[in-house]
């Protein structure tokens, strides 16, 4: 989807969209945004079950509640050309880049047909052909890498950009600051998206930072930025459009802090052990769910007459089928051959 030329055209329109024009954005584009968020939500909702069936192993981090952060940004990118980096909480990013649900689900199940041939797993989804340079199991890990990707884009004198996602907890990693400073110094075309879902595992932002204004932390290294509501995908779209335009024109980085919330536990362990009780209340979770990005956009779309209940039911059915087929595909796929254990340690 993100690859279609239509999208690419729209992306450039979007880049020059001002608040007033926002209302005129084509129906299809907004509906596609809703569809993407719904695809992410439904896919995420399916994975815990597969874990409990021992079809998925390892760590498993879901994106429920944060959908707007990718749906409001990635469709505006030029893929191929632009690059995306994210954390271990990366299923949504892969889907948004255009990785099929089948390739994602097969990777989660460690099958040869997975986007990383089964060698990466949930934290390491990757799809270079679609611009997705992968998740990363190390907090803050993608940020020093983004510096190199941004450097390459500038070195090659392209107009492309790198979008790098990372969490609020990652702001406390030294490597992030080294990279920010160098990105500020070299003026590299990178869009930083801070997924501020309020917690790093069980540690709230207040309990982990000496100074909670993350935009100031970016500014301290020479990177402009702003904080916007990450629960409203239209707001995210606008901010991303502004940011992307700024980057492509000025050829320098931009920092977006998107406030959002993670509905489920940090990872499946957190849900299984009920560890969440140690750091947040059910009321708090409920309050944030009132601001659900999918409900919000659906209301807008229905109000504007862009979407009917029937449309949504149809969409739900299509997506259910997509997810079911992805699961069936993954389960039917074979594990990587044993002799591939020693393959890919090196490239030819």
């Amino acid at each position: 989807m993100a690859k279609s030329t239509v999208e690419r055209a729209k992306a450039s329109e979007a880049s020059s969209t001002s608040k007033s024009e926002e209302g005129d954005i084509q129906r299809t584009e907004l509906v596609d945004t809703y569809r993407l968020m719904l695809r992410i939500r439904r896919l995420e909702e399916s994975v815990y079950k597969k874990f409990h069936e021992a079809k998925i192993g390892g760590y498993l981090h879901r994106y429920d509640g944060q959908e707007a952060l990718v749906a409001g940004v990635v469709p505006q990118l030029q893929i191929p050309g632009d690059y995306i980096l994210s954390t271990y909480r990366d299923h949504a990013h892969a889907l948004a880049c255009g990785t099929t649900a089948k390739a994602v689900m097969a990777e989660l199940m460690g099958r040869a047909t997975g986007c990383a041939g089964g060698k990466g797993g949930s934290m390491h989804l990757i799809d270079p052909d679609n611009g997705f340079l992968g998740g990363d199991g190390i907090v803050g890990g993608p940020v020093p890498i983004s510096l190199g990707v941004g450097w390459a884009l500038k070195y090659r004198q392209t107009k492309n950009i790198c979008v790098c996602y990372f969490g609020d907890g990652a702001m406390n990693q030294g490597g992030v600051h080294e990279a920010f400073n160098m990105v500020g110094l070299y003026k590299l075309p990178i869009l930083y998206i801070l997924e501020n879902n309020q917690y790093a595992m069980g540690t709230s932002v207040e309990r982990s930072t000496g100074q909670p204004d993350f935009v100031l932390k970016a500014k301290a290294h020479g990177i402009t930025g702003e904080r916007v509501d990450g629960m409203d995908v239209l707001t995210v779209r606008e901010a991303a459009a502004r940011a992307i335009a700024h980057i492509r024109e000025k050829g320098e980085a931009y920092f977006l802090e998107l406030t959002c919330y993670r509905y489920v536990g940090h990872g499946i362990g957190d849900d299984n052990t009920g560890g969440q009780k140690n750091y947040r209340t059910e009321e708090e979770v409920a309050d944030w769910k009132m601001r659900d990005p999918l409900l919000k956009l659906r209301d807008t779309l229905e109000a504007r007459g862009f979407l009917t209940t029937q449309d949504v039911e149809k969409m739900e059915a299509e997506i259910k089928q997509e997810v079911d087929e992805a699961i069936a595909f993954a389960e039917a796929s074979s594990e990587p051959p044993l002799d591939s254990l020693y393959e890919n340690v090196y490239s030819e």
Partner: protein
Amino acid sequence: MATMRYQQALRLAMTEEMERDPNVFLCGEEVAQYQGTYRVSEGMLQKFGPNRVVDTPISEIGIAGMATGAAMVGLRPIAEFMTWSFALEAMDVLVNHAAKITYMSGGRIKCPVVFRGPAGVGTQLSAQHSQSFESWYAHAPGFKVVLPYSAADAKGLLKTAIRDNNPVIFMEHAGLYGQQGEVPDDPEFLVPFGQAAIRREGSDITLVSYSRGVSLCLKAAEQLAKDKIECEVIDLRTLVPLDMDTVIASVRKTHHAVVAQEEWRNVSMVSELSARIHEQAFDDLDAPVERVGGADVPMPYAKNLESAAIPTERDVIAAVKRALA
């Protein structure tokens, strides 16, 4: 004696030492309010309060610096790495500061700090989270390197580590946290560093390992006993200091040895053990020392590949058969 899990034994060791010495404190990610990622520090915040059980940001360099600096001025910090993989971020503080300050200061500064946390392979945690690097820490002078296998050792070695006046690399195996064992209640129960434990006596071949590798060797020994092959199983407990006397005495008796670990085999602890046994017992050996280790690849995610990358008792048995062939 009480039966408890390895994980509880670690908690007991920290609790007893914190009750004994007000200079001891614990810091790390999620150790306090969250009760520990692996519940090792469960209840300790409630017992000792936020000044002695300290949640930190996700800043491994900061954590290592906090512990090292505090140790340099007389506290006895225990710093938890959520997993040892993340200690890669703090390598400069660990190797160029904690391990060297005593030497660089001509002995004028002591650095009594324990760095601890889960190490080694979990279950499908992929390449960045399935490793432990004990071989690295054993290579760099200035550390003591401790990897408990039994629940009793988890307590006794950690207490010794906390009382030691040097930086101690204390690696717990996540796969052993749930393992039950008999643990002495005696608050003065200390397991000395540099004394290997003979986990099983045998006359035909010596199996040397540590941490979870010991269980591979014990399982293999059981199997082999059925074929009348009697293995002596040695648990090193600490890699630095290293108890070669126990190893060599056993090899002089059995004339055969297999050294085993779960981690990557190339340039590792089993390489060192093999070299030393050959150097010190060459004429007693009827066959070259056999090494068992993990596959030299980043850990794959897929269950079948991961299983293939981690050594099992079958690998130990095969090595024993090669040695005795």
